[in-house]
């Protein structure tokens, strides 16, 4: 089956005088133009939204939350009992994060978050989801073979570790608190945050060891 990329390439090679836009690029440009002419969207306002999600909201927010939980037992307790408030206290509020729940990895239990039906994801703490999170391979496999998913990410856990998968359908958004790596007792909160990867907060990865991060 031809993909958009194929179409774009043939289009370009066969008819160099035509647009070099991919079909989706052309389609979305046409849509934006129409909506702008009708007064339904303001291109400058669209720029502001893009800027927000491309540069301001991202996994660095979640990493700060996790690093705080690793270093401050009272904050950890708050995060585990009322994640929405604990996360909001660090300034991370907004769309797709209205009802947050934090789940903690331990020596005995590993958590993984998926949305099998669509792409529910905690935007205020992790930003927009990566392509693989929204793609059929992950959404189908996470609930039936999470150890296989971990293997796809190069992660192996002991056979006896409990695997807990949260299929986050719509209202509740989950943040995984990964295990704190060993040899990090002397690190500052900011140094710890640098070890907290996006994937470790979804549960498809682990936090980096200080050696791995440097």
């Amino acid at each position, binding site marked *: 089956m031809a*993909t958009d990329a194929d179409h774009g390439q043939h289009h370009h090679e066969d008819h160099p005088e035509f647009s070099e836009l*991919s079909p*989706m*690029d052309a*389609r*979305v*440009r046409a*849509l934006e133009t129409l*909506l*702008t002419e*009708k*007064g*339904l*969207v*303001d291109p400058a*306002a*669209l720029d*502001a*939204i*893009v800027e*927000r999600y491309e540069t301001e909201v*991202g996994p660095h927010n979640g990493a700060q939350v996790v690093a705080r939980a690793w270093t401050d037992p009272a904050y950890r307790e708050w995060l585990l009992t009322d994640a929405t408030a604990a996360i909001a206290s660090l300034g991370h*509020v*907004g*769309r797709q994060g*209205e*009802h947050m*729940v934090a789940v903690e990895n331990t020596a005995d239990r590993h958590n993984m978050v*998926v949305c*099998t*039906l*669509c792409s529910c994801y905690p935007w205020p703490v992790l*930003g927009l989801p*990566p*392509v*693989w999170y*929204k*793609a*059929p*391979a*992950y*959404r*189908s*496999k996470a*609930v*039936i*073979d*999470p*150890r296989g998913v971990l293997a*796809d990410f190069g992660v192996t856990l002991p056979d006896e*570790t409990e*695997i807990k*998968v*949260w299929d*986050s*359908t*719509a*209202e*509740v958004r989950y943040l995984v608190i990964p295990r704190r790596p060993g040899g990090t007792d002397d690190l500052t909160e900011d140094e710890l945050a640098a070890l907290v990867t996006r*994937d470790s907060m979804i549960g498809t990865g682990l936090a980096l060891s200080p050696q791995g991060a440097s």
Partner: protein
Amino acid sequence: MNGVHDLGGLQSFGPVLPEPDEPVFHEEWERRALAITLALGALGQWNIDQSRHARESLPPATYLSSSYYEIWVRGLETLIAGTEIMEQGDLRARTGEELLAGVSAQGTYERPTAREPRYAEGQAVRARDLNPVGHTRLPRYARGRVGTIVAVRGAHVFPDRNAVPPGEVPDQEPEWLYTVEFTGRELWGEDADPTLTVSVEAWEPYLQPVPQEPR
């Protein structure tokens, strides 16, 4: 609706392919698609459940062969046509300030209700074997299976009634929402990983007590 978006448990999609140092967007049109989706959503002509239903109602082959932002754009086209916003003439584009305030707000679907929750933490429940032709958030793999309530999450707008066809008035009467945990063996049979548990978010109408009440 038993659609191809309901992917949990399928085994034919190959390995998950993480992309090292993945950018937030891969194409310029993806930036615009996200922003247009949020900007039109802010006009209040449809709700999130209508959006999801529009995406999930795409033809199966289209859904599976489209990138996620492409699915968003196609769903948006359905909603634009269904609500006739291009013809309404009385709608005003939201400013950047208004949109940013909107995405920073807590737009929760939690609602007060006079009813008490029917189920409590620790209680066994069965997910009903429902096959509605309309919108639902009960994945097929959980239907008919017995699990345990692990959390009561408050009363929320019920997606199945909120996702009315574009242009119609939704019913936002809330229902209690629960997190229900199932063992891997209950979902996937005796050969399943014995260490696996999977939870779903289930609204009260998705559940029935165990043992079953007399019909």
